[in-house]
């Protein structure tokens, strides 16, 4: 197989890597390659799917469906199949991936390796909860792992950053749905307190809050809470995809622009709330309609900060939102969600609490702000999400993940030479047990 020398980056475009990439089109070609970290659609923001000065394997062409049983909803597919393709193929047959991240471009392998969460984590857990079996290329062998076979390796692979081996394919359980539409209710939340109360009280299967990260004072933490259920009716037509042809100039996301945008976005919802019907892609992947929207942040790219704070840590969360609001750096993309109990993955991000995700353009003051937010998260006994991180330090991250030492030992067993290391695992020293 030929290797392609390329400069590439994660979705945030702030960190870059240069190295050789292979893109096998068949499993036999993958198996013939020397061991290197796998990458999916590179929808992780930071350096999780980067290997600077090294090699990496692009899995996106290995995207075949291997089997589907409409009786049980069990789907087996190669790791490069995207979530959006699953939606396109299976929604007309009445099935949907049980957990979906906010982008349909993410691949099956990437969703397992980050153990992603969706708007229904409080009901359905993370992606890993619906994975039945994984076929892994580990230690030069083709192994099948599950809750029955090599359980510990299975648990280390859910959210395992690809370090336990290359995921070739997996079996996941899809959810049966009544129809292709979503019944969505949107309501304003006037303050952080109200916002969190609404998330706590929500009974809906899917719940997510948009947060105006520029609002201060009494309005701080205000936003819009979206709650949704599956509908029987036909879905309204999907909105057309657009793309961002060039890097945006710096002022596009300057403080006054974002502030004005957010205020208007907030008022878009009438005081009494509103209900509307949406298609599945429009509800779950609203940002995918604008291809390459990451270029809106200009050439220098951006960072996302995402943390989870335990339910008892409302005050800490308030401190975090305050720090963001007073920084004047926030972009319109800020999301608040409630997560349910922890799952099985040893290095999985989700734990019971509130999760906040905010994008920041890469400016001079951004790293200091994010470092502060990470420190506040650590103090509150929370975690930061490695799919989004590009600035954390290793010691604090390792302390946030109690399963880390055990995970590192399992990763080392299948890859003693560290051939699967990525820029992220090196930066955070994740592959050493201490």
């Amino acid at each position, binding site marked *: 197989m030929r290797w392609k020398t390329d400069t590439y980056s994660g979705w945030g475009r702030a960190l870059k890597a240069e190295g050789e990439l292979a893109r096998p089109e*068949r499993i036999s070609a993958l198996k013939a390659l020397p061991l290197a970290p796998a990458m999916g659609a590179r929808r992780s923001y930071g350096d999780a799917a980067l290997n600077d000065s090294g090699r990496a394997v692009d899995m996106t062409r290995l995207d075949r*469906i291997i089997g589907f049983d409409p009786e049980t909803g069990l789907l087996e597919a190669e790791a490069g199949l995207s979530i959006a393709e699953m939606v396109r193929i299976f929604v007309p047959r009445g099935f949907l991936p049980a957990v979906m991240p906010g982008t349909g471009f993410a691949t099956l392998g990437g969703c397992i390796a980050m153990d992603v969460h969706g708007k229904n984590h409080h009901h359905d857990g993370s992606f890993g909860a619906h994975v039945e079996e994984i076929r892994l290329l580990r230690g030069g062998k083709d192994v099948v792992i599950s809750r029955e076979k090599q359980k510990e390796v299975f648990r280390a692979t859910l959210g395992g950053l690809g370090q336990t081996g290359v995921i070739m394919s997996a079996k996941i359980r899809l959810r049966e749905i009544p129809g292709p539409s979503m019944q969505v209710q949107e309501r304003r939340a006037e303050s952080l307190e109200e916002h969190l109360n609404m998330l706590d009280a929500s009974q809906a299967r899917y719940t997510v809050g948009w947060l105006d990260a520029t609002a201060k004072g009494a309005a701080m933490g205000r936003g819009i809470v979206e709650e949704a259920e599956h509908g029987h009716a036909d879905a309204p037509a999907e909105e057309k995809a657009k793309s961002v042809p060039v890097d945006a100039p710096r002022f596009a996301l300057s403080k006054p622009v974002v502030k004005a945008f957010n205020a208007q976005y907030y008022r878009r919802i009438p005081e009494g709330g509103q209900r509307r019907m949406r298609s599945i892609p429009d509800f779950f992947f609203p940002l995918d309609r604008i291809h390459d929207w990451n270029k809106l942040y200009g050439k220098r790219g951006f960072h996302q900060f995402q943390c989870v704070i335990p339910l008892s840590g409302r005050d800490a969360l308030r401190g975090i939102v305050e720090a963001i609001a007073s920084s004047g750096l926030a972009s319109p993309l800020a999301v608040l969600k409630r997560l349910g109990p922890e799952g099985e993955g040893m290095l999985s991000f989700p734990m019971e609490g509130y999760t906040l995700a905010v994008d920041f353009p890469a400016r001079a003051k951004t790293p200091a702000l994010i470092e502060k937010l990470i420190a506040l998260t650590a103090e509150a006994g929370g975690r930061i999400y490695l799919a989004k991180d590009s600035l954390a330090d290793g010691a604090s991250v390792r302390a946030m993940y109690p399963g880390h030492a055990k995970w590192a030992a399992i990763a080392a067993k299948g890859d003693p030479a560290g051939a699967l290391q990525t820029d992220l695992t090196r930066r955070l020293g994740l592959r050493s047990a201490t």
Partner: protein
Amino acid sequence: MNKNWIILGATSSMARALARELAGRGDNIFLAGRDMDDLERIATDCRMRGTGEARAVKFDARKLETFTPLIEMLSDQEGEINAAVFVGSMPEQEEIDADPALVDGTIIDSFTGPARFLTMLAPLMEARGGGTVVGVGSVAGDRGRVGNYVYGAAKAGFHTYLSGLRNRLTRAGGHVVTVKPGFVDTAMTWGIEGMFLVAPPEKVAGDILRAVEKRKNVIYTPFFWRYIMLIIRSIPEPIFKKLSI
């Protein structure tokens, strides 16, 4: 009416994209090539995505004994017979220069193997009174260049063959689409330097389906290659022979 498609070189990512589209329409697909493991995977994928039948079958352009069983199998199918040829190989020109024996293989894979197969298939298509042949050539066949003239020559031969076959099948209600891709993002071009305007394989598959529906004769995909090649063909030979493009 029941539509059958035999896709030769079905492991190519362009072929796979086309097969998925055909499967989505419920056509009956035969995926032909050398790598049976991978072809089985593609067949399953097509069945899972669509409503028609999909089956992996053996075809090696360099092994003539694989041809007859395929023709027999196709004649057992009811309905229209269509064929799409993606078979081709492109060793680097320097490799060929160093080992002239590679000339033969390149020409068999990209021209004479498929031409022989299509010539065996033509009577069946004529007997059924229709069907379409999609032949994938290349812009490289439009003019011989120092960088890949053996491959280019094979493709040029294939283009000429396809034009004659079109002339023949038209009389029986059939049709032939000659497809000339520019640069496509496949295993063949991955990591080769100097690629530009590289098209995704799905784009090529979409262009092919449209050309089949509209009974186009010769298409360039993406379309702008028609103009690029118009310019390249118009360069006078005394100048062209000194260029290295």
